[in-house]
């Protein structure tokens, strides 16, 4: 019986105005996003080709991550070049800096389309599931037969989920297939797996919003009030809570500004160099002091900053949307955790290079080790928060579905 209802839902969706509008919208947006972000990725890849260090140069550069087409996250920060010199690390940022308009608006990657547009679409599929049929009078006809309410609800959920997920999965798969034909973009087996995981996460996310939509639909008598409530909840979950959370966290954790930090570094450097000019100690020992003090400053900053990041993450997780964003970016390798791991790796590389420099008499060596960043393996990514975020998102979905079941069982269908 459940399947019959699900089929009926799918068929009636296929005939509705709403279905075509939203599926068309989602498809066009996903396609545009793929196109735009692929170009962006290729431009950054070309830049990488230019700045890639020659063998033996003490420069740490990580190539852009092809998964950034789907979730750009912090890839721009991770694809900068870090040149190691005796005085410290010189950072060169890439592209976008020439056009300030980029800074005004969010990046239109796949993650953005899913996070903002697809969630809205899922709500629009769910908002009138119960109230519309009640208004039309078909709900009591359905329940006048020997159909259990749980079968109706599950059938409705499944039917709508499928009529949303299948077209979207098809469009996305098509987009990925087109990307796969591009010779410049190559995904490793691991990245394909990660991509599959991102799609699964997307489906869990859709399921969450669909359950929320159905829940509100079972709690309201009229479709029009259901849609109003849902839009407010949506704005709160997608925009307000995650964007406010970081600012709230900043109120509670004191982190020195980055500018102050780099001025402190400058001070250390000047002090040591002037001591050297005065003739105290030899150069390598000064360099060692500078490096050690800078590392201590960095470590101190990192501790505070990590506290801020963790707090802001936890506050933001009030909204499962934030959990979704964290999970997807971490799986894609463009998340906050990955960036932190990358920076630690750069510091380690800097110390290795500095060791070599100091070991040679003129503090120059022609052969430095090459920098190679290995992304954290998937199991490690999952273990450090991503699994939790996924479970958190899924739990909310299940909770909302359970609540809508409770509400629907008592629903007055007349």
């Amino acid at each position: 019986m459940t399947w019959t209802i699900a089929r009926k839902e799918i068929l009636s969706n296929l005939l509705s105005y709403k279905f075509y509008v939203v599926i068309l919208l989602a498809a066009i947006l996903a396609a545009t996003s793929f196109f735009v972000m692929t170009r962006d990725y290729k431009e950054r890849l070309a830049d990488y080709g230019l700045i890639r260090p020659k063998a033996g140069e003490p420069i740490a550069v990580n190539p852009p991550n092809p998964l950034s087409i789907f979730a750009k996250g912090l890839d721009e920060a991770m694809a900068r070049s870090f040149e190691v010199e005796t005085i410290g690390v010189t950072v060169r940022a890439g592209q976008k800096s020439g056009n300030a308009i980029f800074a005004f608006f969010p990046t239109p990657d796949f993650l953005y389309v899913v996070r903002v547009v697809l969630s809205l679409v899922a709500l629009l599929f769910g908002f009138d599931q119960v109230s519309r049929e009640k208004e039309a009078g078909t709900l009591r006809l359905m329940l006048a037969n020997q159909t259990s309410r749980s079968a109706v609800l599950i059938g409705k959920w499944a039917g709508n989920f499928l009529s949303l997920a299948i077209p979207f999965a098809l469009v996305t798969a098509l987009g990925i297939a087109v990307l796969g034909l591009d010779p410049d973009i190559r995904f490793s087996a691991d990245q394909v797996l990660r991509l599959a995981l991102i799609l699964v996460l997307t489906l869990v996310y859709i399921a969450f919003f669909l359950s929320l939509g159905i829940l509100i639909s079972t709690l309201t008598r009229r479709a029009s009030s259901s849609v109003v409530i849902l839009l407010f909840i949506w704005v709160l979950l997608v925009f307000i809570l995650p964007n406010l959370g970081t600012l709230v966290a900043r109120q509670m954790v004191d982190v020195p500004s980055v500018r102050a930090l780099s001025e402190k570094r400058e001070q250390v450097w000047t002090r040591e160099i002037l001591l050297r000019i005065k003739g105290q100690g030899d150069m390598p020992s000064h360099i060692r002091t500078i490096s050690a003090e800078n590392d201590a400053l960095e470590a101190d900053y990192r501790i505070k900053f990590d506290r801020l990041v963790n707090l802001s993450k936890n506050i933001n997780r009030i909204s499962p949307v934030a959990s979704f964003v964290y999970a997807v970016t971490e799986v894609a390798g463009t998340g906050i955790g990955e960036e932190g791991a990358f920076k630690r790796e750069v510091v380690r590389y800097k110390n290795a290079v500095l060791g070599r420099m100091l070991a040679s008499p003129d503090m120059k060596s022609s052969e430095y080790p090459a920098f190679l960043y290995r992304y954290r393996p998937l199991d490690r990514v999952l273990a450090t928060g991503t699994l939790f975020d996924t479970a958190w998102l899924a739990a909310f979905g299940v909770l909302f579905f359970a609540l809508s079941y409770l509400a629907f069982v008592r629903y007055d269908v007349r």
Partner: protein
Amino acid sequence: MIATIVKKEILGHIISFRFIVTLTLLLVVVPVTTFILTNDYLKRIDDASLRQAEIETYLRSYGHFNRIGPILQATPAPIPFHSLVRGLAPDINLGEFDNDPLPVMFPLIDLVFIVTIVMSLVALIFAYDAVSGEKEDGTLKLTLANGLARPKVILAKVAGGGLTLLVPFLLSLVIGLLVILVHPGVDWKGTDWLALALITLGTALYVMFFYGLGVFISSRHHSSSASIMTSLLVWVLLVLVVPSLSPYIASFLSPTPSRIQVDREVGRLSDTERDDLGRKLQAERLRDLIAKYPVLAERMSEADKKRLMERDPVAREAFEAERKATQGAWDEANRIQGGKIEDIRKAAKLKEEAQTKLSRFISMASPLSVFTYLATDLSSTGLRNEAHFGRVGTVWDQAFGAYQRRKIADLQAKDPATDWWNTPVDMSDRPRFVYTEEALGGRIEAAMPGFLLLLGYGLVFFALAYVSFLSYDVR
């Protein structure tokens, strides 16, 4: 009669569920945002003064002209308006090792964000059933069954709805402003209040645009469920898609050379190519000299040269001429290559400016961008302020340069052999960088086209709603 319908619209909205939810939402979000941003602003002031103190300490110990470059720089200062509008805050710091990843993940909230995202959606939620909903309820035909002209009805609907919408916003803004007024650390001046008044006017135009759009969509549909679908679709496109895509489209239409490529090219021009050119020019000039002074063709050590110069005045002349020619050749090479570098940089800059302009132009298809530029320019946190900051910074740079030259001249006057580059100098009398916002007149002038555009967009959709409603089948 219009007054009656406006009143009915206002009363109808005020007792509605959506009005209460909107009011509650805004009453919570706006004051909380203001409170947090105000604290954030105060923190930034603290940080700035701490840094200033650190810089003073640094200068007392290491006031060498060789060591102050990275420390004494023009840096943007926090301005009181940051307690409402963040604008283009330089939080992300991609140029530093410790960049901030948090705002990349979720942009931080401010008044502009609340207006652009929340208020536009609220306006559509208020408007989507203005016509189609009344038709469904059957009240529209009753209204028109009396001797009431359609233009009056639609005009009253837009006016009443728009006015009701602004009430929750203004109320929440007033409470938010109380936070600013009560805080002793935040000192808003008259110009700030004036700028805020103008931003509020912009908000009204922006909200009216979306309300007009909603009424237009509503009068194109016969069921309110279809009109909310279309409204949301249009909202997604205007608010979420067009602005985000615009810089990417612009970069497609008007590409800029990658900055890394430009840097590479500049490096090549000032390094290997300059050396080649310098050597070539040097060889050419020396060839003529050798014809004149055969002594130059001989290979000899520096010591031998010195001895020869002391003995022979002709040789002395020859070597001096050689030194001059070499210097001239390298100066020439530097000049030529410097010109080329400047050309490349200038061309890249022009292209970047063209792309920025195009992005801005494309994004203005969405009223969200128009309002964002208008509000950030008025609050001096936007693009215009970046240019202004650049100008103020240059003025200070020049003043400091003059100060440095004067100090160096003083040092040299005392002792010509001094290493002025590495001698500690008392710099307590240096010109200090004080950031001043651009005068409000200039900002208003810059925001004018935005106001007109918002008004124009609003009028267009109102006209469309009017025309659609005239031919609307109310049965």
